[in-house]
């Protein structure tokens, strides 16, 4: 009798586990044509200048080039960082011939702002406060029947790993709190210094803070641009697009190293996923 009770308990345990871990996608079968959903193309780009310049924020004269890069790659949504304010966004939207709508975050304690651009004219924009500054999120639908998508544009502090850690944690917590069923992606310049060899002195916890911040993101999200290569000069990968670990399938991740102009020190990261 004990064996039958054990088998029944194991069977019930398995059913309970199956219900608890509900998969976000249907299984694709070996040697069967995969059912491909709609494709979502995203871009993140810090269009500011290198720190050596007098004004390291985006320069309005470069926005035409930025717009050309966007139009030639045709992303559905773009996360931009280091704009000076809403005027630059207005100019950029003009260069994009009305194909995108967008919004900028309030500056907070910073002199530069993040922006998010979306093809969907009915997109909803929302500011999120993190560590005294703001990131901005756009909620939109790729198609009327497809699930809602939320893209966050974020820019973590370039100089303090402690602040990056706090900022990242707050952005991730906000993203986790989105209603179930919507697909949340975070794009931006997080400035993580994850390579220990880049650490020039022994008296800082930068690598530790950045590693822990990055690990915290990876606890809930997936680094979609991991294989794409460096996103900034001096062989640094500091721009990221984080997406849900299972809901989307990665189709393409590329750093557009030929894009950019002037003294820009970042290249755009382009990611394409299947919903």
């Amino acid at each position, binding site marked *: 009798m004990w064996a039958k009770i054990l088998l029944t308990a194991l069977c019930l345990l398995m059913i309970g586990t*199956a219900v608890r871990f509900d998969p976000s996608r249907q299984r694709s079968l070996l040697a069967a044509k995969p059912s491909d959903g709609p494709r979502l193309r995203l871009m993140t780009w810090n269009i500011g200048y290198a720190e050596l310049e007098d004004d390291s924020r985006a320069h309005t004269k470069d926005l035409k080039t930025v717009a050309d890069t966007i139009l030639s790659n045709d992303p559905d949504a773009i996360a931009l960082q280091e704009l000076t304010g809403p005027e630059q966004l207005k100019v950029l939207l003009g260069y994009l011939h009305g194909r995108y709508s967008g919004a900028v975050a309030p500056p907070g304690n910073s002199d530069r702002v993040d922006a998010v651009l979306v093809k969907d004219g009915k997109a909803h924009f929302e500011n999120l406060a993190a560590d005294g500054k703001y990131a901005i999120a756009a909620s939109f639908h790729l198609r009327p029947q497809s699930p809602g998508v939320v893209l966050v544009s974020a820019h973590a502090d370039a100089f303090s790993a402690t602040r990056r850690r706090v900022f990242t944690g707050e952005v991730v917590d906000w993203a986790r709190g989105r209603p179930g069923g919507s697909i949340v992606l975070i794009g931006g310049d997080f400035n993580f210094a994850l390579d220990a060899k880049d650490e020039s002195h022994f008296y800082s916890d930068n690598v530790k803070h950045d590693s822990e911040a990055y690990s915290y993101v990876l606890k809930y999200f997936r680094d979609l641009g991991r294989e794409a290569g460096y996103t900034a000069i001096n062989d640094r990968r500091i721009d990221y697009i984080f997406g849900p670990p299972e809901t989307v399938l990665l189709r393409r991740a590329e750093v557009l190293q030929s894009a950019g102009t002037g003294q820009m020190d970042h290249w755009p990261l382009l990611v394409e996923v299947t919903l």
Partner: protein
Amino acid sequence: MSAIRAVILCQANLVATHRESCGCPSYFKRELGVIVRGRQFTSLPEQSQDPYVRFTMITQLKLEFLKLIRSRSFFLSFIALTIFVALMLWGFYSYAERKAGEQVTAQFKYTYESKSYFNGLTFALYSVMFSFSLLIPIFVAMTAGAQIAGERQAGTLRMMCVRPVSRVSLFLSKFLVVAFYTYLLVTFFIGLNLLVGLCFVGWGDLQLYPGALNLVDEPGKLLRDEALLRFVYASLSGTWALLVIAAIAMLFSVLFENPAMATVATLAVYLVFHIIGRIEFFEHLRPYFFTTDMDFWRDVFKPQIPWQSFQHYGAVCGAYIFGTLLVATAIFDRKDITS
């Protein structure tokens, strides 16, 4: 009551006859438990004092394991898998030669399409994928299907049920041995493929592309050491998936008198669902087929393992395994053994 008495007498006579005539080990001869419909009615007083008749699950497992390794089908399955690996290697060589010219096979390990793409790990992955769906299930169904029905056909099942061991223990020990055999088979096959891949093709990183076979959902790359670890995972997830077939075969083994019938019925059920699941007309039925859930084992080769999905489908397979075993034990426990 008279019917029960008749059965008891009949079984007692059978055991007594068997004690005198057969060549079984002495501890078989000494036992005399009489079981009617799974309940032990009588046993000899000497039984409790004899250490040989105190059959534990471990003893049972040892006996079943010895039976397994002495059977011809055990070695046949390993030989067949070795031949399959040899055929796969020959197939890859000839394919490369046909596609890229003879010079390719002269430096086979470096020149196929892309230096980094084709290597021993890719070979092992393809080989494992091809065989897992159709070849290994045959051996698992064969071995599991023969467990009860084979004993019945050989006339030994009645004797085994007369022993003072519960039928459920007997059944579960047989299933555990089948599970061990399945793990051994999968591990041997993966290990052999990796060895052949290393010796004849060379190692490198594992590059993954969805391709026509839809091996993975998205392109990606696994570094060599990580890929080897994923093969280890695959031996476990693959075994778990195959245990669904083993459990179904055990059920049929209880239901049918003939091991061939149990094996064929298992394979028929498996292949019908496997084939129908791949036809586009029945796409909406796919989620209800156990073969769809069984396919979860290859999720370990995805660049990032989708743990949520992996746990879900693994648990569904577990529900099939334990549910089927529960039904099979309930039937076996109450079944009249008349052969």
